[in-house]
């Protein structure tokens, strides 16, 4: 039964789809600032393309026009001046003016990106190897659910190493730095789902540390909140556990088919007698599972690294019960 449940949940496990974009070089513009950033990108693109093509054409033209016939012909180059002050000042000042314009526009955009509007909806995000957890409005989820046309401030923290929260469709990104809070803000302008990636290298499953932001209409957002509440209240424990295991990234380290990954497999785990790195053995029961979720370093299974983060405070009793019951169901 649990396996079937996992299969219907596995649609969640598929990587996010790159949304269609009307722009070849950029993802869709789904936030208030993305238009202005793309505009600047395009201005730089045009100017730089003109400069590059100009350099290449000048080079090709000179090679063709002034190409020497052979070494034997001993042709001499025409004498030209070895520097030309007017020309050199011109091609110093013109790039300078252009780069000053780039700088000023870039500065304005950056200040806009870094100035968090005061009345924003606040979301806490926790980055850990290798999953995201978004918490707001009293709910926690692996995906970021936000209403459209609403300013959202995302407060970012990391429990282990550096990560970076990147939402390409919103053109914003911020590192998650252990030991301090960082933040970013956005205001989504269209509904839909958009990929979230980890952009700062964080080890083995860095490239699978994706999620997505789901932008709802205001009405859908309220409905989502209600449904979340119902799910927590009414889902049977095993199904709730299966859902949480998926959302909280348990499967990046624990398999349910018996194969060991970073941590022991959950298949047939409950009720088995296992040995621990401190030399003791133990029959795995509910209390041990609960302890391993809340204080994973308390007892380390022999042959496995002590790398599991704690979930204490991130899961309520009902949710822990769900996970324990789900693990019990994997015979």
């Amino acid at each position, binding site marked *: 039964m649990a396996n079937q449940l996992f299969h219907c949940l596995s649609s969640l496990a598929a990587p996010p789809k790159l949304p269609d974009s009307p722009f070849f070089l950029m993802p869709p513009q789904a936030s208030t*600032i993305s238009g202005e950033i793309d505009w600047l990108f395009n201005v730089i693109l045009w100017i730089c393309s003109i400069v*590059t093509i100009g350099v290449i054409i000048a080079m090709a033209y000179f*090679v063709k026009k002034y190409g020497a016939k052979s070494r034997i012909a001993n042709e001499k180059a025409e004498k030209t001046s070895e520097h030309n002050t007017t020309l050199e000042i011109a091609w110093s000042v013109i790039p300078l003016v252009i780069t000053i314009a780039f700088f000023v526009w870039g500065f304005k955009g950056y200040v806009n990106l870094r100035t968090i509007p005061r009345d924003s909806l606040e979301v806490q995000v926790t980055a850990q190897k290798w999953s995201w957890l978004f918490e707001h409005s009293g709910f926690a989820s692996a995906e970021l659910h936000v209403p459209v046309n609403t300013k959202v401030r995302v407060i970012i923290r990391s429990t282990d190493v550096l990560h970076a929260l990147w939402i390409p469709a919103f*053109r914003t990104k*911020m*590192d998650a730095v252990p*030991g*301090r809070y960082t933040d970013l803000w956005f205001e989504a302008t269209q509904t839909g789902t958009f990929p979230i990636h980890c952009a700062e290298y964080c080890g083995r499953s860095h*490239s699978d540390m994706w999620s997505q932001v789901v932008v709802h209409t205001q009405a859908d957002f309220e409905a989502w909140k209600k449904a979340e509440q119902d799910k927590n209240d009414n889902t049977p424990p095993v199904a709730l556990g299966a859902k949480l295991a998926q959302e909280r990234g348990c499967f990046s380290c624990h398999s349910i088919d018996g194969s060991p990954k970073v941590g022991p497999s959950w298949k047939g785990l409950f009720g088995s007698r296992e040995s621990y790195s401190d030399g003791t053995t133990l029959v795995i029961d509910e209390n041990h599972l609960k302890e391993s979720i809340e204080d994973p370093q308390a007892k380390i299974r022999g042959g496995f690294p002590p790398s599991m983060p704690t979930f204490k405070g991130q899961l309520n009793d009902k949710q822990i019960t769900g996970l324990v019951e789900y693990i019990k169901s994997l015979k």
Partner: protein
Amino acid sequence: MATTTTTDFVSPEPSTTDNYLNNEKGLLSWLLTLDHKRIGVMYLFSVLASFALGGTFALLIRAELWTPGPTLPGVTADMYNQFFTLHGAIMVFLVIIPGIPAALGNIILPLQLGAKDVAFPRLNLMSYHVWILGACFMLLSLVLGAADTGWTFYTPYSTMTETAVIPAAFGAFVLGFSSIFTGLNFIVTIHKLRPKGMTWFRMPLFVWALYSTALIQVLATPVIAITLLMLIVERTFGIGIFDPALGGDPVLFEHFFWFYSHPAVYIMIVPAFGVISEIIPVFSRKPIFGYKFIALSSVAIAILGFLVWGHHMFTSGQSVLAGTIFSAITFLIAIPTAIKTFNWISTMYKGRIHLETPMLYALAFLWVFTIGGVTGMFLAVMSVDVHLHDTYFVVAHFHYVMMGGSITAFLGGLHYWWPKAFGRMYNEQLGRLSALVVFVGLNLTFFPQFILGSRGMPRRYYNYLEEFEGLHQLSTVGAFLLGIGFLLTAYGLLSSLRKKFDAPANPWGATTLEWQTASPPPYYNFATPPEVTQGPYDGYENLEYDEKIRGYVPTKA
């Protein structure tokens, strides 16, 4: 008759006896030599071997990225992470940093100065021995469970991972000393060993470039050394410097790391500017346009390069004010770089352009370096960088500069000075063909990566969204083409070594001093100390091509 020096050409014809390559025999005569040319040759082959190793990892990376998720049998995400770490660390620390200064520079710099050797020959040999030691530590990491931190060693990941970070970091630490020794040696050599009549503004631009590079090597390298030492201390003794769990600050590591590693990109590219400035006038038969500007802009770039490290950290949480200052100074560096390019192009105006292999590489350099340079604009603009940071756009940008700029210039310089260093002409047709393959290969490899990046592909990814597969495959095809180009190049150059000495003293008709001694040069370089009476790129009209010896000789009055 106004030739560049008062020295007569020793012998314009190929030397057959008693040159630096055959005056002593045996392995020890190489390993313990104090001759700058032999040390340069050993550096050259060590760098080329490292390049082959780093390139192998690059091909493994590209092959693995042929499809999303696992592609090559047996290559896990962990192994992929080790591949890109080793590729980056080897290419940066063992190839590009020593490539032009320590290999080509060691062979050519004293010759260009008309000197018998560098100022401190023993220090020079020690620099090579220390380099070998550092390289051994890097390889030790490879054997003990290669580091998987990326070449950037960012904390706290690098203090936590179970791979062999310490040997790799210690290797980079040791290699730093080799770099400092070479830099110090070059600074003193350029100050003290210039020949009579060679004022600062009569120095070849390659010498100016090596001088600027040496300043950065001496001033910046100690910072990375201390940083890596602190990383090792934190990992070994658990003393909290960077790890917040121990009371440290990971952003501090980023500051320390880039305080060296941004100037280090100028250690990698400024010597390339020097090589290009040598090749273009010689193959255009015209003095370089705007000599003083090119010379001084290398120094300006070296100094400004110290003040821009924070542009790697626009999304790290550093303050807006700091980011603004770093962005502004970054734009300032763009100006001298742009003007250099314009000067090189202007040098070709009304020249008589010969398209042998070195010039083809110089033209390829102008093309790809311009793309590498202008894409830096996107990244210097803070708001646009927030989107592009840590994506394939950045990967494409620095490969256009490092691979397209530094390596292309290195290959151009290698072909240019090959006849001088080894006394043999390489196969010209093969040289041109491989230059073309390298040029096509590198554009095909790295151009699609710009598009991948701006569309949303983060860097250092083992797995990726299916929609990116096509562009990744294009890039992989390019990488293998590039590999073929390098194999052709290697074959063309190395096969010439089987021939008898056949290179004339001055095959390209250059007027800098290294071409006024035999090819290969005698052990003491010059029979009599040369004297300089004019600029390094003056006097092409006083040389003429002699068909018999396939090289240039002074015009008979």
